[in-house]
């Protein structure tokens, strides 16, 4: 069961924060949907948080999306953070494929 949502929050300081939450099978079949939500988040918010802790299965398409998000963060100047620790299944895929995730995996979400 896959789902991908982008929830907009406004912090006390008035910053617009988008939380993109991906759960279930985050594989190539759903890559387009995940990409759309991430694009929407970067377009509409001042900062983006990515929650992957409920991902049950992942492949390299998700790894590419995370790297691309990091590049969008650099080009847009909008901070990107990971919420919580990504699941072991995803970390295993990264390790096998030799991908170094360009974001700290344990970082707390921006408040």
């Amino acid at each position: 069961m896959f789902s991908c949502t982008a929830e907009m929050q406004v912090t006390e300081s008035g910053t617009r924060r988008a939380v993109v939450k991906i759960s279930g099978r985050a594989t190539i079949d759903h890559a387009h949907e995940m990409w759309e939500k991430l694009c929407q988040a970067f377009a509409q918010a001042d900062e983006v948080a990515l929650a992957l802790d409920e991902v049950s299965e992942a492949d390299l398409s998700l790894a590419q999306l995370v790297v691309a998000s990091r590049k969008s963060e650099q080009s847009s100047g909008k901070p990107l953070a990971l919420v919580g620790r990504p699941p072991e299944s995803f970390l295993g895929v990264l390790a096998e494929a030799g991908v170094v995730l360009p974001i700290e995996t344990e970082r707390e979400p921006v408040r």
Partner: protein
Amino acid sequence: MNRDHVDALRAAFREEAHDLLSELESGLLGLEERPGDAELVGRIFRALHTIKGSGGMAGFSEIADFSHEVESLFDLVRAGKLRVDDEVIDIGLSSKDVISALLDGKQPEAIRETVQQIVDRAKSLSQGKAGGAQHESHGGAVLTVPSEAESREPQRSAIYRIRFTPSLDLFAHGINPLLLLRDLATLGNCRVNARTSEIPGLEAMDPELCYLSWDIVLTSDRGLNAIKDVFIFLADSNDIRIDEITDAATIPLEPRHKRLGEILVERGDLTPQSLEAVLTEKKAIGQTLVGKGLVRDEDVASALAEQELVREAAERRQSEFSSRSIRVRSDKLDSLVDLVGELVTVQAGLAQVAAHLDDPELAAASEKVERLTADLRDTTMGMRMVPIGGSLERLNRLVRDLSRQLGKEAHLVTVGEETELDKTVIERLGDSLVHLVRNSLDHGIEEPAIRTTLGKPRAGKVHIEASQSGGYVYIKIADDGAGLDPDRILARAVDRGVVPTDAGLSEREILNLIFLPGFSTASTVTEISGRGVGMDVVKTTIESLRGEVFIESDRGKGTEVTLKIPLTLAIIEGLLVEVSGEHLVFPLSAVDECLEYSVKERAQEASIGAKRLVEVRGSLLPFISLRSLFSITTARPAIEQVIIGQVDDKRVGFLVDRVVGSHQTVIKNLGSLYRKIDGFSGATILGDGTMALILDLGRLVQRAESSERAEAMRQAKQPVSIAK
């Protein structure tokens, strides 16, 4: 290839294969204990792989074909596609037996049925249990049939650099690159570095395209074709570059590792000119190159991974080189030992001449030769020393098979495998160890249900411990079984007329009765032991090695047999003595001290029956006069010497005429004519060419005791004369 060459190749393979089979067996038994141990699986696989490859080259095609089938099974285990269970271990062990039989000359036709059964079991196991999960990208059966070349020739190990740049539409073809990377990882030691620089930002990306590419460094002995096979199903639009960086076997032992810059230039990531320009700045090269935008972070990371892998391979080769040994035929070693023995004898003669001529220069030269000879002797003896671990390992299999056969549970614990003994001694010791372990399992360890009732763990334990002390190695074989029953042993001995009813034996003496020929208390004769031909053979074997056997037992708790064996059979340090002009040698390791024994002491000589006693620091010690024992009637010298030594854990004295001094004793076997003469374990040649007999102290004590008993009985039978 001429006939001699083929024969030499086959002989070399036989020798190597026996070692590999031991390795295979110990690996399998270890894996049974630790089914998840990947290193053991690797050992097993390599042993089978080498047997297959070398066997094929040496013309043992049956062995090569059979090993291939079993190797395939363990390849699945190695790839994590088949779980290790009893069936896998059983197939492995049975295969070891088959290969062993073929090596020993068994005709393939004679065991064709067994071979077929094992192959069928292996095939059914792999197809049944791993069928659906394996070879996702290749499909096909589990036991793949290799090409002729693959099944015959072991590949050399090499380091490969692989750059895999998939086409952008890779995902659209339903290909998951992760599976390809996993397949590569099964071929050897693999370092994977993903290149992510081509992934654009979100706004420019198509999430269904593959932007990733990979740099992989792989150490593998599977050959270039095996690597190419991984990518075989990819279309030409995928860019795959495979370069062999180096042959792992030819990496210099102390290599000058390629520098980062050199690797980057070699890979085409950097021009030599840019490298030269940056090197003049003397900063960390990777950092500088990235800073200047000449290469990307990922290029540096990938090159560093390659550098590390090559360094690791060099270290591995260095460590293999350090532990490398050469094979020398044991008969060559034997003749070397003989020559050293001759040299020791000649040196003793030289020392005697030097002493006789009283020439200081000759004496100095003689001393030098003596030192060198002693060093040469120790080195040569050291070359014959091998760790006892190999002999103990095969007992693991025995314990496993026997305990199953007997419906018992038992495990073997070995300590001190590194303890070294002369090769000949180890070879002659093997059967005795097997017999003692069989006894422990058959008569000692109780059945699991009984053990539970007795509050013992279900599984019994056989503990074998080897250690060295002085010139001896001690091997203890202990079990936590039922122990020996002294009452039953005594009853059996009385029943057989071995001892009288009122013999009044101590418990230790009763236990020692089991070493008598034909003695067994087992109520049923089993296939395993209990035929009453074992323990006396063990004792005879150990004594023929100039060793001793001790036994201790605690009823209900277990039995411990200790073997005390001299380190070597070839040359020993001896103490040369003289009795009535004849020379005799005491093994120096058995001698504690020497005491003077004067006419005055002789006059005060105390005795109990026929046994003489000497006072040593306030306590009385029994001693045996060698003159009396050998019925020598010439006049005794005014001052004699008592040599005090240890025999069967007891201190005993031996009265001799004179102590000559220490002597490097090259042991020569007594000819068959003299073999049955009790009390001598061999002979040696002295420097002047005369011969000296080497004393067997244990036998001498037994001989003295039996003469005492005969004398006592003779006296008891003498008719009492009544005066008229």
